[in-house]
C-alpha cells in the first residue's frame, strides 16, 4: 500500500506534522497492551470490587431506579445491526433504526399524553435544560422559574445551561418535602418564559397541576413538567393530561440499566405547535420512490449541521440505542405490563411506609414510589444505614448528598417491582432496631 501511495515509510505520511511534535512510538506512559483474556480479567476484578443491585436490595432512587429489565431488551440492543449502525442519515439502508425511532417517539408521546416526541436527549437533566431554552425561544421572554421540588441535579444543570444567556432564573425554595403550588403560582408572571415543575416531584409526591396550568394560561407561560421515573405513567395521570406544554425526563426506568449513571435516556416531548422549536433529531414518516412507506430524519433545518450558530440546539450524537432499549421494553410490557410495574412499585413503597416505626416519619401527601424518611437525628439514621448495608440493603440516599443545605437526618427512599415483600420486611426489621 505504501508503494501505491508512492512513499517508502509510514512516517512519510506524517511529515505534515512538524517534527518537534512527533512522539516516539511506544513512549506513552500507558500500560502495555492487554490480551482479550487479560482485559476480561481486569474488568472482572473491578466489577467484583463493587456491590451491585443484583445481589442486594436497592432502595435507591433520586433519578435512577432499579427496575426489572427483560432479557430480550439487552439482546435486541446487542445486535450489531442496532449497536454498530451510524446515525440514520442514509435512510434507505437505515430503515430499522428509523422505524424503531418512530415507534419510540409514538410510545413516549402516548405514555406522557403529549402530541410529539423527539428521538432523545442525553439524560433527564439536560432535557430539562433544553426545555428551558426552548421556552425562551418560543416566548422570547427572559425569565425561567424552577420549583424547588425539581431534582437538584436537573436544577443545577439547567442553571448552567442558562448561565451565559440573556435572562434570569428564579429557583423557588421547597419546604416539607413537597411542591409548594401557591409559591409557584405566585412566581409566574407575564415575563416568565417557562415554569419548570416535577411530577411526581423529587420527593415522589403526586399533586394536581391544574392551578399552575391556569396561571400559565393567564400569563402566556409555557408549563414544563419534568419526571424521573417514566413507569409512573402506566398507573397515574400523565403530565399531558394536565395540559403541559413540554414534558421531559428520564427513560432509564424503561429497560435501561442503572450503569453507575449512564448511558441513560432523556425523553423530550411537547405539543404539536412547538414542533419547529424542538431540539434534537426527529424521525418522520414519508414514502419512497415506489410509494412504499418509510421513515427519515426530518426537520433538520433546526439542527446544527445546517443552521450552525442559529440551530435550536448544539446536540448531534444523542441516545439512539437507548431509544431502542426503551422501545423494546415498552413493546413487551404494553399498557398492562407498565401498569403492573407501577402498581408493584407503589405497593412496595406503601408497605414500607405503613410499617415504619414511630420514630421514623415519611413525607406527607400522595407518593408514587419514592418518599423521604426523616429520623430523629443523623446518628440514628447513619446507624441504620450501616446495619442495612451490612445486611445487603442499600436503604436510601442521604438527602443532604443532593440537597446541600438540609439537616443530615433524612433519607430519600425509592421502591420498584424488584423489591419483594421479604425485602420490605427486612428493611423494617432493621429500622425497628433503631428504636
Amino acid at each position: 500500500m505504501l508503494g501505491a501511495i508512492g512513499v517508502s515509510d509510514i512516517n512519510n505520511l506524517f511529515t505534515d506534522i512538524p517534527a518537534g511534535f512527533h512522539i516516539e512510538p511506544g513512549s506513552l506512559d500507558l500500560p502495555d497492551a492487554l490480551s482479550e483474556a487479560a482485559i476480561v480479567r481486569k474488568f472482572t476484578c473491578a466489577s467484583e470490587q463493587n456491590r451491585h443491585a443484583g445481589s442486594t436490595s436497592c432502595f435507591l432512587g433520586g433519578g435512577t431506579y432499579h427496575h426489572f429489565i427483560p432479557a430480550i431488551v439487552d439482546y435486541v440492543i446487542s445486535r450489531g445491526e442496532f449497536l454498530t449502525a451510524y446515525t440514520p442519515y442514509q435512510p434507505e439502508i437505515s430503515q430499522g433504526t428509523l422505524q424503531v425511532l418512530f415507534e419510540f417517539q409514538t410510545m413516549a408521546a402516548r405514555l406522557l399524553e403529549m402530541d410529539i416526541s423527539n428521538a432523545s436527549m442525553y439524560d433527564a437533566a439536560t432535557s430539562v435544560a433544553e426545555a428551558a431554552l426552548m421556552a425562551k425561544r418560543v416566548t422570547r421572554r427572559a425569565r425561567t422559574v424552577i420549583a424547588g421540588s425539581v431534582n437538584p441535579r436537573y436544577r443545577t444543570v439547567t442553571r448552567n445551561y442558562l448561565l451565559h444567556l440573556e435572562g434570569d432564573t428564579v429557583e423557588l425554595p421547597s419546604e416539607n418535602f413537597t411542591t409548594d403550588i401557591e409559591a409557584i403560582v405566585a412566581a409566574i408572571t407575564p415575563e416568565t418564559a417557562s415554569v419548570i415543575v416535577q411530577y411526581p416531584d423529587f420527593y415522589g409526591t403526586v399533586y394536581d397541576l391544574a392551578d399552575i396550568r391556569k396561571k400559565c394560561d393567564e400569563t402566556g407561560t409555557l408549563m414544563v413538567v419534568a419526571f424521573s421515573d417514566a413507569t409512573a405513567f402506566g398507573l397515574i395521570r400523565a403530565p399531558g393530561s394536565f395540559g403541559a406544554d413540554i414534558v421531559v425526563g428520564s427513560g432509564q426506568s424503561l429497560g435501561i440499566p442503572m450503569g453507575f449513571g449512564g448511558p441513560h435516556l432523556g425523553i423530550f416531548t411537547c405539543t404539536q405547535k412547538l414542533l419547529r422549536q424542538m431540539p434534537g433529531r426527529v424521525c418522520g414518516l414519508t414514502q419512497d420512490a415506489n410509494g412504499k412507506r418509510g421513515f427519515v430524519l426530518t426537520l433538520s433545518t433546526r439542527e446544527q449541521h445546517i443552521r450552525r450558530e442559529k440551530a435550536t440546539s448544539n446536540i448531534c450524537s444523542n441516545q439512539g440505542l437507548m431509544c431502542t432499549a426503551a422501545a423494546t421494553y415498552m413493546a413487551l410490557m404494553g399498557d398492562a405490563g407498565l401498569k403492573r410495574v407501577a402498581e408493584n412499585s407503589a405497593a412496595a413503597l406503601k408497605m414500607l411506609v405503613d410499617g415504619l416505626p414511630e420514630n421514623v416519619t415519611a413525607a406527607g401527601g400522595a407518593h408514587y414510589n419514592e418518599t423521604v424518611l426523616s429520623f430523629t437525628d443523623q446518628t440514628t439514621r447513619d446507624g441504620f444505614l450501616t446495619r442495612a448495608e451490612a445486611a445487603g440493603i442499600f436503604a436510601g440516599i442521604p438527602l443532604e448528598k443532593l440537597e446541600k443545605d438540609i439537616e443530615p437526618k433524612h433519607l430519600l427512599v425509592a421502591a420498584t417491582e424488584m423489591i419483594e415483600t421479604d425485602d420490605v420486611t427486612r428493611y423494617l426489621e432493621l429500622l425497628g432496631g433503631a428504636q
Partner: protein
Amino acid sequence: MSSSPVKSIYQGGSHGLMHEEPLLFEHAHEAAESINLPGVAGDISAGLKAFARVTGPGIPGLSEPETVRHFVRLSQWNHNIETGFYPLGSCTMKYNPRVNEQVVRLPGLANIHPDQPESTVQGALALLHELQEWLSEITGLPCCTLQPAAGAHGEWTGLMLIRAALEARGEGHRTRVLVPDSAHGTNPASAALCGMSTVEIKSTPEGRVDLDELKANLDGNVAALMLTNPNTTGMFESDIAEICKLVHEAGGFVYGDGANLNALVGKAKPGDMGIDCLHINVHKTFSTPHGGGGPGGGPVVVCEALAPFLPTPRIGKMENGYAIISEDENSIGPILGSIGQVGVLLRAAAYIAAFGRNHLHRIAEDAVLNANYVLSRLKDAYDVPFKGICKHECLLTDEIQNRHGVKTLDIAKRLIDLGFHPMTVYFPLIVHGAMLIEPTESESKETIDAFCDAMLQIAEDCEKGETEALHAAPLLPIRTRLDETAAARNPVLVWPEEK
C-alpha cells in the same frame, strides 16, 4: 401482513429473506400482559388512587416471541459496521470489539446505582480514574472530565471552562469565538449555547486556516479559536504552533475539536502543540459503538489554567481510595445529571487497554495509511480540491462527474447498490459537492480495494455516459430513495391513535 419477495441487498452478496414488518401499533395484539413480573402485589395508597390514569397509554404489548421477531426483522433493514464498510469522513466508523460489550455488562459495572456508598463502587471508580489519566497522557493535557455525554456537549463544556477562566482573570468581556469555515456545525452551535458570538475564519486555497485572516480577527474580545486538527478537509494544520502562539498572544484560548483525533493518537499530542482544551469523541477514536446515533461520550481534557474550573462531580484519588468530589467553589458545576456515560467510557477504557503503550500509535498509522491509499487510487478519477498527503480521511468532489450531470448525491446512493455505505457528503461546506472518505484502520486492503473499485466503476460509468443507474439509485435496499421534502413539509412524528 404482507410478505415481500426474496430480495438481495448487495449485488453478488449473500441472499436471504427480507421481511416487511408493520409498525408495532399495526400488529394484532392481545391486551393481556405477556410477562410475569416480580414485586409486592399489594394495595396502592388511597392518595395515589386519586391520581389513577383513566385510560391506558395505548402501548400495545406483544408476546416475547413477537417482540423479538419484530425488532430482529427491523434490525435486518440496517446497514451496520458488522455487515459492511462505512467510509464516513469525520465519523470514524471503526470496528467495535465485542469484548468491550462483554465487560461492560458485568453486573458489578452495569447494575450499580450512581448514589451507592463510595466504598461499594471502588472498582468502577478505579477504572474511570485510570481512563482520565490515560486520556490526559494520550492528548498531553493534564486534567480531564469524563462528564460530557457527546462531542457537542464537550465543546459546550470546554467553552464554559474558557469563559469561567476568562471571568476569573477579569476578562469576562471576551466572548468572541473564531471558527474556521471548515468546522463542524456543532462548533458555532456550541458557542451560541454558551452565549458567545462566532466569527468565521476563511480557509486558504490549500484548505488550511488563513493566518492573515486569523491575525486580522484577533483582538481583545476574542475568547477562543475552535480548531479541528487535522481539519475536516483531511489536512493537518501544519502552522499549528504559529496559530496557537498568535491566539495565546492575543489573550485567547485554543479549543481543539477532537473529532479527528484518530489521525494523531499515539503519534502526536494536541497539548504539545498549544491546544488548551480538547474534547475526545470516544465513539470515534476509541471505538464505542454508535448505536444508530448514540450514546456517545465527549470527555474533555484541559491545560492547568482551565483545570480549576472543571465540572463537578469529579473522580479523585484519595489516600484511602477513590472518591466522587461534588464540592469545589471554582468549578462550573455539573453539566450532566451523572458523572458521565459510564458504560460508554468503560468501553473506551477497554479499547485503549487492548492497544496499550506499545500499539496505540498503530491506530493512527493504519488509519492514515488507508486514507492515503484511497486517495492514491481515486485521485485521477475524481477531483481532489486540496493536494498533498492527507491524514485519516481524504476529500474529493463531484466536479468531474458534474460534467455528465452526476452529483455527489447520485454517487452516494449508487454506492449503496454496489454494497457500500456512502461517504460523508456535502461536508465540509467549503468545497462544492464534497465527498469525505474515512476508511479507518480496522478495514482490510481487500475491503478498501472493493470500495475503490466501486468508486472507479461509477466514475467510468459517468465517462461512458451510462448514468441512468446513478440517478435511480438506490434500487436494491428494502426502500428506494425516500422523499425527505414531503417528510419535512408535513411532519408526522407519531403514529395516530385508533379511536
